[in-house]
């Protein structure tokens, strides 16, 4: 499985004649990925509901299956069986294109996330760039779908979405640049390997910590979660951009939101918390390194996801002009200055290398 996953798809696609086995292997990898992330998305929904229950003095789902684990699968089955209703006045092409773009963008970004050493579908030299490029495509789907559904609430949601995504991409970019400066590469594995002795969060003195915080804030904004869920804003806009979607159309948006949350957390774990590396190398000598790598990686991702959920169930929603003020007047200048300081630190070689 390790070898299968570590095939460098782009290279081999060009080099090899596309034999039947090669196509089958590719299809197999894709199926594994899709299956894994469908289940991961559903489990995240389950987790979100359990965490919400924990925060809100209630139990959350606990009836379907052991500890309610099958609840979200039952919900998904229900959504599959529902009618996909298209409003009469909607632009059918754009309406349908909306959710496909959103889910495809979310799944594409997964390709470069390193789960452990060599457990990665695609490891090429601009992996980080690829993620930020692909994740900004998702907003197109939201805009198109909301425009296509001919609903004023959807449109307001889409306008907000456009503002929000374009703004927060910038500061997320600066946070990422700070890490790239430290690592000296855009390759995901290279970034993880550069943290062999110390996580980037601690390597770069204060600027790295500031970059991490900016990354968390703009990551929350990019995934449209509270306190930045203006796009959905259920108490203001009904359901925002997906007001008119039902059945699987809605489910795709919903799943994409949770996969995006996973991606942001995975990116945070990879960039700042050392990815698959064990803290202080405590499991380094043990067998089945790929399994340990995955365990550590998922543990770090879980911590960040829990943080995002904590935000969601505690904070009120911020207003659109405050959102833009926060980005353009605070996060962006701070990010800029931070990047310059980080460059200085790297230039002077003041990075902290423990061990």
């Amino acid at each position, binding site marked *: 499985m390790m070898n299968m996953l570590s095939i460098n798809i782009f290279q081999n696609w060009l080099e090899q004649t596309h034999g039947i086995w090669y196509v089958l292997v590719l299809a197999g990898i894709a199926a594994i990925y899709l299956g894994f992330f469908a289940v991961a998305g559903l489990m995240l929904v389950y987790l979100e509901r359990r965490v*919400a229950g924990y*925060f*809100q*003095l*209630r139990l959350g789902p606990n009836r379907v299956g052991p500890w309610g684990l099958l609840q979200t699968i039952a919900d998904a089955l229900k959504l599959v069986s529902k009618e996909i209703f298209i409003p009469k006045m909607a632009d059918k092409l754009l309406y349908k294109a909306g959710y496909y773009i959103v889910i495809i963008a979310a799944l594409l970004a997964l390709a470069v996330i390193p789960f452990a050493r060599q457990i990665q579908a695609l490891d090429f030299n601009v992996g980080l760039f690829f993620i930020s490029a692909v994740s900004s495509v998702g907003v197109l789907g939201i805009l198109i779908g909301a425009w296509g559904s001919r609903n*004023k*609430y959807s449109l*307001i949601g889409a*306008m*907000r979405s456009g503002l929000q995504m374009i703004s927060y991409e910038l500061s997320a970019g600066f946070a990422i640049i700070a890490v790239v400066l430290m690592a000296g590469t855009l390759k995901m594995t290279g970034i993880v390997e550069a943290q062999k002795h110390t996580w980037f969060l601690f390597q770069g003195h204060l600027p790295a910590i500031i970059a991490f915080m900016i990354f968390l804030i703009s990551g929350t904004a990019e995934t449209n979660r*509270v*306190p930045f*869920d*203006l796009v959905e*804003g*259920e*108490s*203001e*806009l*009904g359901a925002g951009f997906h007001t008119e979607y039902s059945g699987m159309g809605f489910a795709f948006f919903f799943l994409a939101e949770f996969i995006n949350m996973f991606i942001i957390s995975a990116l945070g774990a990879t960039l700042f918390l050392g990815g698959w590396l064990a803290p202080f190398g405590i499991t380094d000598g043990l067998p089945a390194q790929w399994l340990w790598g995955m365990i550590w990686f998922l543990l770090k991702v879980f911590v960040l996801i829990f943080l995002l959920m904590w935000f*969601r*169930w*505690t*904070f*009120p*929603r*911020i*207003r*659109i*002009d*405050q959102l833009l003020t926060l980005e353009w007047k605070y996060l962006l200048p701070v990010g800029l200055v931070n990047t310059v300081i980080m460059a200085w630190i790297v230039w002077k070689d003041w990075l902290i290398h423990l061990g």
Partner: protein
Amino acid sequence: MEPNTQILSTEDLRSQEYFLNMGPQHPATHGVLRLLLTMDGEIVKNIEPDLGYIHRGIEKMVEYDTYRQIIHVTDRLDYLSSHINNEAVALAIEKALEVEVSDRIKVIRTMMDELTRIASHLLWWGVMGMDIGALTTFMYAFRDREMINEIMEKTTGARLTMSYNIPGGVMFDLHPDFVKDVKAFIPHMRKVLPEYDRLLTGNIIFQRRMKGVGYLSAEDAVSHGASGPVARGSGVRCDIRKKAPYSAYDRVKFDEIIETGGDNLARYQVRMREMYESLNILEQLVDNIPEGPYQMPMRTLIKLPKGEFYQRVETARGEFGVFIVSDGKKNPYRVKFRSPGLSNLNALIQAGRGVKLADLVAIMSTFDFVIPDIDR
């Protein structure tokens, strides 16, 4: 405090205005209120409420009811202050018949009023948080509101539409557990209210969303007939419990809560502080519930003398008035309910003009509408 001036910055930009139909099915209207909004981008230019989606003709209906039956209909006005509404009708009838109720009845009514007020404010607080996106407040508020509901249920047999008041008293005597339960509730509430502040009030996002938004001047509040926490948030002294004390309010010490901000935060603080005051009132009364009858002897079929009778009370939302015109028969000739919600809705049009859509939702939340109270 300056009114919200964000609109000035985009005044030079021209864009097409459009209609947005908010409601009758909209999560922030908490019922079937319909607002026709004229929007310019995100900014609300004008608000035009369209009422009548839950109009049941209650005022006409009660013309065919006997006086005892009117009380049960008032549960369905402002269902979160049902006990206080009932009391207004009972007091009006007692006033018309010149019946003096016993001290026990007065104290019971006052305590129930204050419990109702706390329950109503708790629900408001939970929903307020939800409206601006903090979903956890709802569950916290409902946990504590449940204690009040249980107290109510034990004594009155109902949790929401209590119909506990009758002309000349209350339906049943207090449950033996009542004093014990209220005594357990008061310290619990004093413990959780600061917790609420830590969760929501102190939050920077919340403060930013509330401060200076939805400004309503004292003059506007008065001229639109606003009452209750909405008017008191603008610095208008309008607490009926102080101005025209009824039941046992003349024998308890409490402050009329006034905030002068006139914005969302002021209205929010009025309600939060009112809960403390309600606890104070409960604390003063819970140990001195006088002995006496819980019902005064009254005829089964009540006939009011000819004339006009008015009684006003302070519900959780403001001034609620009952105006009865009697021609001496067993039914009233005409009944008019002065509900706080309708006048407050007028003030919303004033306060909500020129704000962002998200702010309108927050303002509506601090105005605390109960739609059946507006429509009747």
